[in-house]
């Protein structure tokens, strides 16, 4: 066997032994678990339009929740089975805020409806709805205050006949305060509601409407790619710890001239396989993979070279691992959209020195 063939043969054996290492599979499993976890967490976001509702029973709760769920709205009204489920949703950010409507509304309206006006003028009893609706809001909620108006508008509509009835029964409107007057007023209310005499607002788009960009979907893809890129960078830093193993040192000496190539390849081989696993996972998570993903093959090689050079700076594994974690955190900041924030703008160019940014670029091509 000629010299280079002998060297390649040795290299093949060494790479296979690297891929048989339980450490490689342990790392891959951990990275996949992290990718699945970080890709699926729900965090509060301003783009969330979900407003939670709980129908705790009662006529008015039924009427209001029914009306809110049926009518077209800028909010996405979602019915939750219980107060606890709603509270969890608001805490986790899957709902921006939420409302619990229950029989307290019926009790408040019934009290006003059954007020006794026979003793003389004590004023009209309007339903006292104070504290009847539980409103769940988190520190990150942005739409709760505006959503209250939608809830109240439906409730106001539902109690409107009761207001007219109370005023008629109290004798402040007509000389006759019997049920016949109230029945007549109710019929008139229904007629008025169907006519075109009520106040209205006309919405108009000024100019040609542009198709809205699906920013949330783009952000979701970018997040998935960023997490995968960071995890692959972390993997390359972890695989580079092989240089601290006695066996690896001995093998590098055995390979003599080609030692530095072996150093890079012992990072590259498991990294490429991990990259393949993560690419499949990303595809399953909904990130469309284009032929651009093939660029990962050379980019991961460059990442392996980068980490190999970084690892050369250290003699002790402890310090290397400690600083690798710090490096990943910094890479996380520069690879994410945080890199666009205020003071980081001046050092934006630094991000292009990091392999995680190259990997993210490939995944989003």
């Amino acid at each position: 066997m000629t010299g280079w063939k002998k060297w390649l043969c040795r290299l093949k054996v060494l790479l296979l032994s690297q891929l048989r290492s339980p450490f490689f599979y342990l790392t891959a499993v951990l990275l996949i678990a992290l990718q699945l976890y970080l890709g699926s967490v729900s965090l509060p976001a301003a783009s969330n339009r979900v407003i939670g509702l709980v129908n705790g029973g009662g006529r008015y709760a039924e009427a209001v929740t029914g009306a809110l769920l049926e009518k077209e709205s800028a909010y996405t009204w979602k019915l939750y089975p219980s107060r606890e489920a709603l509270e969890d949703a608001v805490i986790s950010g899957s709902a921006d805020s939420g409302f619990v409507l229950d029989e307290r509304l019926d009790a408040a309206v019934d009290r006003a409806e059954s007020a006794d006006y026979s003793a003389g003028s004590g004023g009209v009893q309007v339903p006292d709805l104070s504290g009847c609706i539980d409103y769940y809001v988190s520190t990150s909620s942005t739409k709760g205050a505006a959503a209250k108006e939608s809830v109240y508008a439906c409730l106001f509509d539902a109690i409107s006949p009761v207001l007219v009835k109370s005023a008629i029964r109290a004798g402040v409107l007509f000389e006759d305060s019997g049920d016949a007057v109230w029945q007549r007023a109710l019929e008139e209310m229904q007629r008025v509601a169907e006519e075109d005499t009520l106040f209205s607002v006309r919405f108009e788009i000024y100019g040609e409407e542009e198709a809205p960009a699906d920013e949330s979907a783009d952000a979701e893809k970018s997040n998935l790619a960023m997490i995968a890129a960071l995890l692959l960078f972390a993997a390359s830093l972890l695989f580079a710890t092989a240089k601290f193993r006695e066996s690896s040192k001995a093998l590098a000496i055995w390979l003599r001239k080609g030692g530095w190539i072996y150093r890079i390849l012992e990072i590259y081989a498991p990294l490429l396989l991990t990259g393949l696993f993560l690419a499949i996972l990303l595809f399953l998570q909904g990130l469309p993979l284009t032929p651009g993903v093939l660029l990962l093959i050379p980019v991961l090689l460059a990442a392996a070279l980068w980490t190999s050079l970084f690892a050369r700076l250290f003699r002790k594994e402890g310090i290397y691992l400690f600083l690798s974690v710090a490096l990943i955190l910094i890479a996380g900041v520069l690879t994410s959209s945080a890199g666009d924030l205020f003071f980081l703008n001046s050092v934006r160019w630094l991000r292009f020195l990091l392999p995680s940014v190259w990997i993210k670029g490939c995944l989003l091509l």
Partner: protein
Amino acid sequence: MKQWLIYLKYEMKKGMALIPFFLVSALLAGGAVLLAAIIFCAVMDARQLFPKAQVAIVAGSDGTDDSSEAKGDVGLKTNLALGLVQGMESVKSICSFNYMSPLEAVEGLKDGSVDAAIYLPKGVYEDINNGTNTPVLIRLSPRNKALSEGLFAQLVADGASLIRTVETGVYSVDRTSAVYAPVSSLGNAEDQMFSLYVKCALARGNSFTEHGVSLFGSLTQLQFYEVTAILLLLLLFGIGFAVLYNEGERRAVSYMRRSGFHCVKAAAAKLLSATCVLFLLLTLITLAAGVLFPNGIAAGSGEEAAAIPELLAGAFSKLPSQLPMILLIAGTLSILIHVIYSLIPVKHAALLYLLIVIALFCLTGGLLPSPSMSRGLQTAASISPIPLWQKAIAAMLFGGGV
């Protein structure tokens, strides 16, 4: 006992020898961890930034003449009503108003600086009063970009719904009066009805009982990540303890066991040594945090910069109350470190420790609060020591029970 004390002294010496490594590592990585925590927090804040809709009020125009540069007048009553609307919490939360001329409004809609324009024709208030349907025109920006724009339109629709409900009631009284005689006059009956509706509508805010909840429990977001940064740093210190569990150490313990020295005693000595080292380090971190951020990171370094000796005195004065918690955290952390190193093979000890700790940290509520995780992971978090350490560090830094 004497034998154990000698062994303890040996372990303590080895533990203390690690302190320079920890200090160098903490200085190098601590800043990065803290910076990343603050920036992570800023990213979370940016996710929650809500762009308010910029709304132009075009008074005295029905939208037919867009070339006028003069700002119109809608009358006193409409102006008063607008003032009330602008002051509402719901309105303030999603949009801000500016009075503009028709020309300014259309130019704003074109260049995107205005998201919506409300055209209020002359006498709109009187029209509502008289039962004339004069539609209010609302022009939306063609860019259809802002989420706030949709919410603004919804808010307007809700406001219009309130007005329609009032109109329905008042107009029904008006029509019923054709059959049944009003008490004094029709105008008086309508006013009575209108007042009742307005009384109810103005009290609508009282209908809601607010329950404030937070992803970060009793902490603020920044406090949570301050705690997270310190906990991560403490967990990373465990990497340094790998040398206490290397091949030679394990062999030495094995020989000692054969000569009658119980392995529990050896473990106790190692635990005590690690606890002492972590106790010292955590005390230093607590003092440093007390000097750098006397009121927590969230409050910055304080409005009035105090002198270093005063800050040190303040940090030292708090220390006695913090020491029991520091000891508890150091003790439990050293138990975790000992358990992990005792179970994993020597060959990749530091690396495996890091993998286990990072998995534990990330998957059980260290990186993100457990309510944001799936049910399975929330269960895992409930039996993980990570949330307990977070609570202990939070109690130590910001007070309150654990």
